[in-house]
């Protein structure tokens, strides 16, 4: 088993216009920086992007929005991006807003072969429009469908050539659930290690979910809200 490829461009081979992508990350934390840059360079268009957020104006998915490569966003929160808001309110960009927990669970379900599940989130709101409602334990729930993607684009901390991954801190977020749900799952890691270096008991994403892996470079890891307290 050797899933290592040279770089983001090789990892994204076969990715075409109008495909559906999942992109890991929460805000700018744990986003696949190298792959996003490659998507800009490739110039693919008409993308449907499933990602919790849409980056900021000049970083993360904001870079793809600037170039109008995205046709539709499926997200839970997009409040940090003015260009996004402009494109959405003007109707240039289709947007499907989903409760964050439903988004995470729908990705996991897509990866786990669960085509649909009931959740209470969103009952009685716009989110429930057109969806089946059923009462369980006296409480109304709505039926949510699984999400999958042509490519799931993931950022991990360390990985090996089998595709085994570990994440660091809250850069984990959506990455493990999206890794499960890609027809092709592409991973960029800060550090490629030899098989056996990752303790099998503490692997976050088993390699079975991963098709291609490469060592990323020049990570900026921009901080969105730098908050500190004074030194004591």
């Amino acid at each position, binding site marked *: 088993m050797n899933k290592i490829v040279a770089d983001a461009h090789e990892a994204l081979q076969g990715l075409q216009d109008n495909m559906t992508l999942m992109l890991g990350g929460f805000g700018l934390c744990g986003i696949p920086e190298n792959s996003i840059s490659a998507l800009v360079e490739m110039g693919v268009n008409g993308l449907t992007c499933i990602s919790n957020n849409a980056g900021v104006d000049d970083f993360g998915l904001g870079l793809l929005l600037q170039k109008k490569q995205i046709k539709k966003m499926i*997200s839970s929160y997009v409040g940090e991006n003015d260009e996004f808001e402009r494109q959405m309110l003007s109707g240039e960009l289709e947007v499907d807003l989903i409760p*964050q927990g439903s988004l995470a669970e729908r990705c996991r379900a897509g990866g786990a072969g669960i085509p649909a599940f009931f959740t209470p989130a969103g009952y*009685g*709101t716009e989110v429930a429009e057109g969806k089946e409602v059923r009462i369980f334990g006296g409480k109304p729930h709505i039926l949510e469908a699984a999400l999958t993607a042509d490519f799931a684009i993931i950022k991990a901390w360390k990985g090996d050539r089998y595709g085994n991954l570990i994440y*660091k801190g809250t850069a984990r977020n959506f990455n493990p659930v999206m890794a499960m749900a890609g027809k092709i799952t592409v991973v960029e890691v800060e550090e490629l290690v030899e098989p056996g270096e990752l303790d099998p008991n503490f692997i976050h994403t088993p390699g079975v979910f991963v098709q291609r892996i490469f060592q990323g470079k020049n990570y900026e890891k921009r901080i969105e809200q730098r908050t500190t307290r004074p030194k004591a």
Partner: protein
Amino acid sequence: MLDREGIAKRIAQELQDGWYVNLGIGIPTLVANYIPEGINVEFQSENGLLGMGPFPVEGAEDADLINAGKQTVTMLPGGSIFDSATSFAMIRGQHVQLTVLGAMEVAENGDIANWKIPGRMVKGMGGAMDLVASAENIIVAMKHTNRKGASKLLKACTLPLTGVGCVKKVVTNMAVLEVKEDGFHLIERAPGVSVEDIKNATEGRLVVPDVVPEMTI
């Protein structure tokens, strides 16, 4: 009249020992600064963090350790990290005892709106819809009125809903109110605020007992 810190202080009095608590963005985040003596709680951040500590000291910020507001944070001993699906398993599965969040509007039947102003502002619901649909115990932290002076405690929400019939308690700059079948029950007044002031600032049905104590914060 309370300021933002005052609202947070008052909400902190609601904390019970051993609770897991999710604090939303804004005023709710401040609650963590006022945990009462002798009370141990753990803070859950829905991006995948339990046992959230204070902001890091300058220079110790870690881009890989943020809260749901995208702020750099620290972790306390006994904390843990997990993925987004597990995080919302905690929330949806009612393992988190208290949710504190902000709102644009709350209705007398417990409906809440806080994620969208049609045609003008659409930031998205983030984790709020999951939180309000699942939490047994939801406290809303907000100003009693909006910038134009109009009440945010309404007969019915006018904005798109975040959740229905879910809010149990509201703490504003003017009052503490419980949401019951017959409307907002006035529990406490903020220092220097009269029952009359609160009546004037509340559009939804307000139930006022004979005696309304002033908060002690």
